[in-house]
């Protein structure tokens, strides 16, 4: 049998149905008696609701907060000291706090009719001044998003240090302000749900496009005040998650309430306008960073102030503070330096709540830190890669506890950088730059590095104290009577390829052929509890749990085989679908057949537990695995139009032992494509009334195939010392570094003109404006 275990480059099992259009997403599900919901949403960012008028003929089809009296608001607290909780009403009560906030639910036989109803609901508002900017939100005289708070700060944190020590020794002090635009996560499939009350089972069933079905169940239970046991959440095929599907939405709670009260099924499918204007917000950070360095480029200290625009409410379960709290702990990145101070603010504004997006906080942090490294290099007239090399954590320091007590488990960061420099051929680029381009453009090269904590568990999340703290992860493994294997996990696969990679793990342990293994996920009725798919955790956590369950199952299979082969269980080897003993062998199929269909052949003292196991797993240390990478971009800038063409893009990545390198490549490509979006295209702008200025994908630009460069990925493989097989989480990394690498490359290209960009996305307009500003600055100076 060809190798099908850990390390095999197998074609993804799930792609057969995806590529043939046979997947089943929420929008494909047809259930009898299903009606459609449309929502009346707030057109204003901040206003008091004076009255809501529902036309008389719509009674029984349109519901407002007054109808949902017994439903509790969505509340996601954290245990971090000073945190101010927000209550997110599922339908607005008294006040609206962002454009798109739900005010009423309208239910009709189809969506068009439901939208007709929504258009007839009249709301009388008293407009209030909107808080549209996170820095203005922090000011004393700002309007208040939550009146009783007294300010607009969800949470303020401070990692303090005496920066005088760093300043005293420093040859240079460099200060920069950075900002990253608000983005909207854009999975191809939006959110969507169907809610159904089953009178016989006395159970609410919710089909939801979610990456965390068990967490949605907990959230629904808390808001609706019904037992977990009375709720079943099914996540069918999900068309991309990226974090957006890890959130309990008020829409889901409204649908559940409606199904429980109306006696028929209710469906809502998010459309792109709702996705863009009302919901999928992420990424908006602002930084002021000062770096102190000696004249060799060695960093002596970093002093930062970071603000995250958290939006109006604390989203469930990740809270309004996950981003800023992480910023403080991960800003130092892959570097080792002695002094660090970081002051963070999670600011409330009249925008949709900020949600975690692939790379959570790291994309912004990497942008700030990696642009800072280049700024220091510029100040010292050094090659930016030399400054990086001087400050990277070295392999002999591993495992390494950094300045914020992050425990870097393993790796060789300098080697990743060296390989990247070689692959992009820095020397050749510098020569080419001297020669100039025949088409009049200027070229630049930029680098960025990060490390990515993944699969971090109890010890990390208990401190944050959000509604969801991951513990041990469970998996269930069951041999079927025909010798097949069923694996059940509580996490969800929606692009990660877990149906394939977890089969590989099971194959590695049990030797059962890949095509005889079925991975079941996405249904709270069939799977063990799990916090779900987030934080690049599944390969480590579900993979570890599957291995553990398979280990125990192997024990049981060996036990039965030993009885039949009249040897000791320890004499049995499982390989290629067979249990091989000293004097004979059985196939797995035969073992299963005997257990299930011919128990009369078994001796009476056989272990009665059978061929089904639920087992749990946690790595030896649960502080997380640290995969890491170096990215390099080579690009050309048209200085007249500001257009950018990426000429080459290199990624050297270390994700520990790779279960399926082909899937990892796919994850990296997908993440990097999103990173290109962050770097050059994606931006949700707001006006002074906090109105989102894009409502379609022709205003909110996503990169398409023509905008994504051909990416060259190279792997290093340093196993994690703490996890089963040495795997590390790797799913998010691709999205982290591109904004920094690309912006550094643009700044490298523009260096002779004295222009420097510090905001993402780096649009053509911003490039031209920076060039013009640098030119006029030069002229003024002259």
């Amino acid at each position, binding site marked *: 049998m060809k190798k099908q275990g850990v390390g095999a480059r197998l074609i993804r099992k799930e792609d057969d149905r995806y590529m043939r259009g046979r997947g089943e997403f929420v929008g494909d599900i047809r259930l009898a008696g299903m009606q459609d919901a449309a929502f009346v949403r707030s057109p204003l960012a901040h206003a008091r609701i004076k009255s809501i008028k529902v036309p008389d003929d719509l009674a029984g089809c349109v519901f407002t907060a007054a109808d949902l009296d017994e439903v509790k608001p969505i509340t996601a607290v954290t245990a971090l000291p000073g945190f101010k909780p927000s209550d997110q009403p599922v339908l607005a009560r008294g006040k609206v706090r962002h454009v798109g906030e739900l005010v009423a639910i309208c239910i009709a036989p189809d969506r068009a009719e439901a939208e*007709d109803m929504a258009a007839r609901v009249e709301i009388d508002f008293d407009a209030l001044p909107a808080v549209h900017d996170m820095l203005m939100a922090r000011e004393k005289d700002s309007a208040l998003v939550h009146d009783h708070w007294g300010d607009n700060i969800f949470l303020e944190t401070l990692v303090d240090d005496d920066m005088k020590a760093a300043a005293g020794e420093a040859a240079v002090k460099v200060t920069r302000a950075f900002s990253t635009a608000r983005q909207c996560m854009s999975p191809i499939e939006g959110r969507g749900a169907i809610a159904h009350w089953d009178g016989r089972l006395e159970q609410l069933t919710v089909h939801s496009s979610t990456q965390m079905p068990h967490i949605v169940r907990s959230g629904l239970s808390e808001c609706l005040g019904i037992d977990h046991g009375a709720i079943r959440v099914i996540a069918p095929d999900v068309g991309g998650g990226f974090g957006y599907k890890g959130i309990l939405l008020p829409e889901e709670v409204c649908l559940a309430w409606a199904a429980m009260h109306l006696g028929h099924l209710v469906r809502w499918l998010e459309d792109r306008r709702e996705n863009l204007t009302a919901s999928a917000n992420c990424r908006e950070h602002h930084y002021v960073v000062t770096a102190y360095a000696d004249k060799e480029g060695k960093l002596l200290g970093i002093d930062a102030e970071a603000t995250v625009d958290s939006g109006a409410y604390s989203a469930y379960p990740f809270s309004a503070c996950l981003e800023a709290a992480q910023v403080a702990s991960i800003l130092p990145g892959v570097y080792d330096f002695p002094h660090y101070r970081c002051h963070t603010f999670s600011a409330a504004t009249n925008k949709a709540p900020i949600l975690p997006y692939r790379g959570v906080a790291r994309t912004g942090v990497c942008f700030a830190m990696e642009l800072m490294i280049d700024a220091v290099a510029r100040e010292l007239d050094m090659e930016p890669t030399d400054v990086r090399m001087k400050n990277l954590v070295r392999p002999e320091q591993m495992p390494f506890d950094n300045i914020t007590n992050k425990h870097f488990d393993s790796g060789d960061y300098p080697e990743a950088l060296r390989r990247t420099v070689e692959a992009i051929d820095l020397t050749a680029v510098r020569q080419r730059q001297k020669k100039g381009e025949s088409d009049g453009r200027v070229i630049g090269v930029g680098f960025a590095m990060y490390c990515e904590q993944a699969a971090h568990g109890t010890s990390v999340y208990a401190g944050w104290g959000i509604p969801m703290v991951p513990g041990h992860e469970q998996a269930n493994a069951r041999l079927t009577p025909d010798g097949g294997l069923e694996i059940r996990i509580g996490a969800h696969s929606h692009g990660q390829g877990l149906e394939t990679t977890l089969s590989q793990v099971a194959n590695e342990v049990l030797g059962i052929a890949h095509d005889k293994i079925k991975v079941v996920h996405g249904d709270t009725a069939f799977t063990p509890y799990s916090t779900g798919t987030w934080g690049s955790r599944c390969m480590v956590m579900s993979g570890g749990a599957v291995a553990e369950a398979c280990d125990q199952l192997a024990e049981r299979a060996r036990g039965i085989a030993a009885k039949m082969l009249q040897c000791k269980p320890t004499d049995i080897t499982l390989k290629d679908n067979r249990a091989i003993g000293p004097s004979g062998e059985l196939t797995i199929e035969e073992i299963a057949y005997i257990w299930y269909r011919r128990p009369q052949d078994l001796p009476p003292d056989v272990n009665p537990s059978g061929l089904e196991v639920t087992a749990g797993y946690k790595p030896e240390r649960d502080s997380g695995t640290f995969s890491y990478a170096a990215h390099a971009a080579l690009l050309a800038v048209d200085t007249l139009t500001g257009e950018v063409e990426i000429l080459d893009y290199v990624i050297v990545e270390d994700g520990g032992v790779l279960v399926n390198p082909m899937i990892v490549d796919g994850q990296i490509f997908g993440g990097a494509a999103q990173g290109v979006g962050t770097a050059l295209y994606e931006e949700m702008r707001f006006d002074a009334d906090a109105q989102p200025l894009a409502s379609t994908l*022709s205003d909110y630009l996503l990169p398409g195939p023509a905008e994504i460069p051909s990416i060259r990925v190279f792997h290093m493989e340093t196993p994690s010392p703490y996890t089963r097989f040495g795997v590390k989480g790797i799913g998010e990394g691709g999205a982290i570094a591109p904004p920094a690498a690309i912006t550094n490359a643009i700044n490298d290209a523009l260096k002779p003109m004295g222009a420097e960009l510090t905001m993402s996305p780096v649009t053509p307009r911003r490039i031209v404006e920076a060039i013009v500003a640098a030119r006029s600055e030069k002229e003024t100076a002259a």
Partner: protein
Amino acid sequence: MKPVAFDYARPRGIAQVLELLDANPAAKILAGGQTLGPMLNLRLVQPELLIDITRIAELVEVNENDDIYAIGACVTHAAIEDGRVRDPANGFLRRVASGIAYRAVRTRGTIGGSLSHADPAADWLSALLVLGGELEIAHAGGMRRAALHGFVKGAMETDLGAVELVTAIHVPRGSRVARHGFHKICRKTGEFAEAIGAVTTDTDTGFFRMVAAGGSEQPVLFDDPKPLFKNGDPLDAGSFDMDMAMDALREAGMEPDEYELRIRAVAMSRALQEAMSP
């Protein structure tokens, strides 16, 4: 994002279209639907009746004789791109067609629909303005011809009457030596242009025109582009002057910000380079 309820008619002749328009002031013409479709879904238009004109045979024909070359209003961008319709402008129409949005859009989108909608950022508007295109318009009393320049009154604003239908686009035949340039600046493949420059020059006839377009402002046509050139000679591409071009655009009434104005001038300059390159 679902349209309001509307009726749908698919007449077989132009006369019927005019009758339906006359009887239903809240009717909308549906050609390729590539703009109207999304606008319906966003409820930005809420018609009572959609009149689908794509099955009217004469609207997908090309009418050609010694005097005229008229492309039916419902000819798709893809038909032009693929050369299924002869290009009287030495390949210029094919090239412009091939750069419109995405292939999927080009397969359904029509030249008449684009010009009737008159989005200032649309490719056909600039391309046919620079060529000196004319529209053939059906009305109750018969047919009229209107120069595209003048027909467009502003962004998405034309002098098309409520009971009128654009039936064909007349494209002037250039001489064999006519040269053209078209440069579009847009954020990503397939998006509407941030800036367009278009140039046509015919040394046989002395015809030399340039167009600049962008944003939501009406395109500007220079039928005498001398003021854009340092030495006043449009055939000397090297003397095209960005600052003079920006001044001229301002004078012509364009009021965008500095960046937008700049890239419109760049687009003109690059269209010129293309037209003049060997």
